[in-house]
Structure formats: C-alpha cells, structure tokens
C-alpha cells in the first residue's frame, strides 16, 4: 500500500486508524443509539488516562533514540507523587496556598530532574550500561519513596485543604491534556529542529563515530536522562492529583508501558531511529485499545493478553525486512 509521503513517515498512523475504526464498530451504543466510544467525554477520558504514560514516553523516546533505556521512571513517578503529597499535607509552611503549591511542585520536579541527572551521570561518567544504571535507580528510588513515607500512603485532604486545590488543578482534564500537548510540542521541536536533537540521533546511531566527530556525547546522555527524570516528575504530579494521594508503591511497570508506547510508535530499541509523533500514536493506540476493551467490559486479564498481541503485531508490521 502506497501512502502519501507525509504519512509514510509515520506508518504507525495506519495502526491507530485501524484500532480507532475497530473501536467505533465495537462500541456499545447508549439509550439514544449514540456511539459511546465517539462521545467527546469518552475521547477526552482516553487522552487524560494516557497522559502520564504519554508524557514519560516522550522523554523515553529521546533516551531510546540515544541508544539507552530508562527503567527508573515508574519509581521516580511514585517518588514525586509521594514527595508532593508530603510537602502539601505534612508540611505547613507560613505561605499562602498558591506559594505553598508552587514550592512543593518545584521541589518535587527539581528532585526528579536531579535523580534523572544522576542516572545520566552514572551512565556517561562511570560508563555503566543504561539498563543496569537505571535498574539500580529503579530499586533505590522505590526504597527512598517508601522510606520517606514510612510505607504508608499520604492521602490528600478534602474541602479547602491546599492539597485539594493542587488536585483540582492537576486533575483538570484540559490542563492535563494541555500538559501532554505542550510536552509533545517541546520534545518534537527539540528532537527535529535543534542541534541537540541531531546529537541525540548521532549518539544512538553510532557512538564511536559521534565521538570521532567531536560531538558532546556525555552532555547529550546526561541531558536525555535528566529530561526523562523531569518528565517522570511531571507525570508524578498528575498521578498524585488523579489518585488523590502520594503512594510510594504506585507506578510499577509504568516504565514498560512507556517503552511499549515508544516501540509501537516505531522507535528502534537499538537506537538512532525514532520519532515523537510515532510515540504519541503508540500511546494513543494503547489508550484507545484499553478504552474499547473496558467499554465492552472485557476481563482485565484478557486486556493484558490482547495488548501483548498488539505490541508484537505493531512492531512486526514496522520491521523493515517484511516482504510485501
């Protein structure tokens, strides 16, 4: 099948179109015969529900294009959610609510950025494999989050409590979807239109060659992992607001969901090749699929099995060696 050149770059969009069409066909209908899947409220539900994974996956795309992987994002998300809850619920500074929220979220994001920086520094300086370095961070930060909260979840307050105000902002549908869109625009421009983006690809394609040509390999690596930490932090804020608590046990396997969105989106785990629009499509494919299975009230375990098949099918369809 020949696609117009603008679309041919993102063959994944075909996959999304197929899943979307299937969702429209399979959608249950409401009492007035309307298609429930296509209702704006339902479609925006999908975007909001995928925003956490979607934002992490954007930064993960850069990490994977640079030839790395980041397994620590789920733990980082739990850490940021817990830290935010701690700062909003247990800490009572002499500040107004707006200043209190600002300080809390800046502190939480700064810690996430620093932990990402730590990942990058260990990988670039100590030359540990990214899988191992971020595996260690995943384990260590999980422990840090649980230790910090004494194993318990920190629930937000209701009514006029400052944490409730934070949750109102960060669980607002438009705000959350807007954050994802803004992050997508940022990472798209960063990857496609900046020197840094070219360096990311060059490092992932062939690190040695990139080194010979004098590219700042260390800086590039530290930067992509720092950004990935920051993205996990932003997702952590959304997560805390949505789940109305800081839970140090949350976010497990989020790294795998994010990596799944990236690879469904056509980014090669071997590095060098990939795109931000592809990753967005990957996240949407998983989101639409989850939504239609839930609208049809399919068993959660079957949901997992179908997702597994979709991952394999999507990546296989994009593999270059397929003979058509």
């Amino acid at each position: 099948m020949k696609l117009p050149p603008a679309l041919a770059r993102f063959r994944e969009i075909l996959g999304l179109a197929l899943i979307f069409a299937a969702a429209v066909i399979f959608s249950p209908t409401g009492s007035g015969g309307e298609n429930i899947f296509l209702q704006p409220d339902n479609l925006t539900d999908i975007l909001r529900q995928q925003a956490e994974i979607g934002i992490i996956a954007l930064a993960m795309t850069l990490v994977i294009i640079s030839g790395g992987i980041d397994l620590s994002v789920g733990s980082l998300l739990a850490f940021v959610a817990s830290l935010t809850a701690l700062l909003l619920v247990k800490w009572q500074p002499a500040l107004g609510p707006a200043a209190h929220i600002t300080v809390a979220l800046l502190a939480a994001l700064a810690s996430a950025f620093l932990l990402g920086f730590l990942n990058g520094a260990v990988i670039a300086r100590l030359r540990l494999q990214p899988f191992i370095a971020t595996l260690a961070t995943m384990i260590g930060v999980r422990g840090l989050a649980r230790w910090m909260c004494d194993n318990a979840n920190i629930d937000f307050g209701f009514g006029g409590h400052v944490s409730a105000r934070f949750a109102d902002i960060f669980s607002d549908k438009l705000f959350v979807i807007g954050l994802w869109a803004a992050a997508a625009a940022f990472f798209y421009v960063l990857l496609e239109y900046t020197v840094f983006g070219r360096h990311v690809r060059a490092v992932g394609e062939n690190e040695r060659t990139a080194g010979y040509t004098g590219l700042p390999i260390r800086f590039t690596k530290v930067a992509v992992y720092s950004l990935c930490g920051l993205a996990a932090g932003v997702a952590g804020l959304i997560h805390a607001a949505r789940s109305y608590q800081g839970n140090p046990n949350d976010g497990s396997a989020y790294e795998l969901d994010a990596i799944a969105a990236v690879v469904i989106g056509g980014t090669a785990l071997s590095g060098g090749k990939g795109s931000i629009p592809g990753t967005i499509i990957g996240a949407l494919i998983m989101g639409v699929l989850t939504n239609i299975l839930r609208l049809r009230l399919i068993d959660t375990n079957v949901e997992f099995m179908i997702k597994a098949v979709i991952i394999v099918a999507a990546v296989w369809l994009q593999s270059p060696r397929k003979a058509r």
Partner: protein
Amino acid sequence: MKKLSTTMKPKRLLALLAFAATFANAADKLVVFSQCNNAEPYRAAQNARMSERFAKIPGVRLEIMDAQQDNTRQIAQIETAIRRRPALLIVAPNESAPLTRVMGRALAAKIPVICLERDISQPLYTSYVRADNREIGRLAGEYIVELLKRKNGSPAGVVVEICGLKGVEAEINREGGAHDVWKNHPGIQVAAAPVADWLQSRAKDRMTEVLGALPKIDVVYAHNDPMAMGAWLAAKDKGREKEMLFVGVDGLSGPGGGIEKVNEGLLAATFIYPLCVDEAVAIAEKILSGDTANLPKTQTVPSRMVTKGTP
C-alpha cells in the same frame, strides 16, 4: 488476489463480532461491579456470590471489572463504566481517598452507587454496606489476650502482626481494634508488624524475615486468613509452627477458606468478615425496581468468631 483474500477474512470476522456484540442482551439493565482485586479469595467469594445472586434477577446483566489492586486502574475503569450509563454501579474501592472523587462523578451522572465493604473519604454513594472491622479487631484482640493467658499464665507475650495494605479502612481498624484492647495489657509486646498487602506469598516472605529476627513468638495476628496461612507456611519451613498460635480474619467457607484452616488446626481462630453481598443485592433490587424511598445510607453486617468445632 492472494493479498485480497487475507485482508477479507479479518474484516468479515470483525463485522460478525460487531453484529453479535450489538445485539447481545441489549435490553437488559446493566449493573457494573468494580472489584478492587479479583486475586484475593475473599473477593473471589464476593464475585461468585454476586454473580449467583444477580443471575436470579430477570432483565439484569452483571459485569464485573477487576482493578487488580491498582487505584489508577480502578479510577479509569469506573470513568469508562460511567460512559456506559449503567443502571447501577457497585464499587468495592481499592483505597478510600483515591476512589472518592470518581464515585462522586458517577453520582453526579445520576448513576446510583453502592459502596461495598470498604469506606471512602466522603459519603459519595447511595448506600454503603459495611462490616465492622473495628469490632473484628477488638474481638481478635480480646481472644488473643485469652490465648496468652492460657499459654503464659498472664496476658503477656510476644505478638507478631501481619498487616494488609496500609491506609485501607480494614487495615486501620483490624489493627486499631486489637490495639484498643491491648493498650490495657502492657505485657503484650507487638515485636513486629510487617506489611504484606493481604497476600499469602508476601506474608510468607515477611514472616520468614521476622522468624529470623525473633527467637520466640507466642501469637501471630494476621489481618486476613491468607496472610495467616503465609505466616504459618513460613513457620513450618523453619519447624516452628507449633511454637506459636495463628489468628486470622475473613473466615471464608469452602475449600481453602479460613474456616477449613481452623478445622484442620492450622489457625487457632478466624473472625468472619461478612461478604456483604446479600445485603448489597437486596439494596440493588430496590434501586433497580425504582423503590428508592427507604434505602439505608449505611448498613453494618455483623461478624462472629470461628474456632475448631464452631458449627
């Protein structure tokens, strides 16, 4: 041509499935039960009883969604269920604070909500059917005082608690109720209280560590039966299962349930935590028939103790 035939087949299948899906029980009233975690025996028993009871109500279709002990998943599942506009939503919330708002959204969408067994932070439900975990905790605490008197001559000794998911109402009160009793008995020393998230496998791991740390244990009070069994298995591995007594909560009947374990002599006692399903279904029938005048806001289902030989 070959290509054509391979692309036709899935299309035909899709159309067939869509056809079947559109007309399956379209006229039935939909009841969605959002279960926080199918993978616990107590909840499997709830699901089975729920399916059995709803199967007898004509014109009603029950669908159970499993959140697999994940707040985020349960919130998303309920959001999506709201779009289906069910005639009734029954929720066994995974945790109180996270599920409060989404249940409020269901109510706001004019969907009646029955909150099953676990409380939420604000009363955003039509009816709440609960069991009294505080009372269960107190009953268990008193019984353990008796066990220690019998074993050591005085209400004193080393107790290990195995805790469920922290922050959940059941955990707070099964623990708190026992401590309400024990605070009057300074000889009772809670030497360890590891968290095992209600799961047998995790309880076995945590108990193995505790056994390494404590040379003598008198009573293990696990906040549910599977965790009591996990602790018993860990003690058995070390040949120490006769050294201590095991007390659990839930008291499920049937194979593998707590009552069977009590009768086999593995657990000293269990405290029946009622499924709450029969009471919830009674309320559901009223709601579905439009008889919403005298619905109880909160209904408490009583507990009782089971020891060996209890009928």
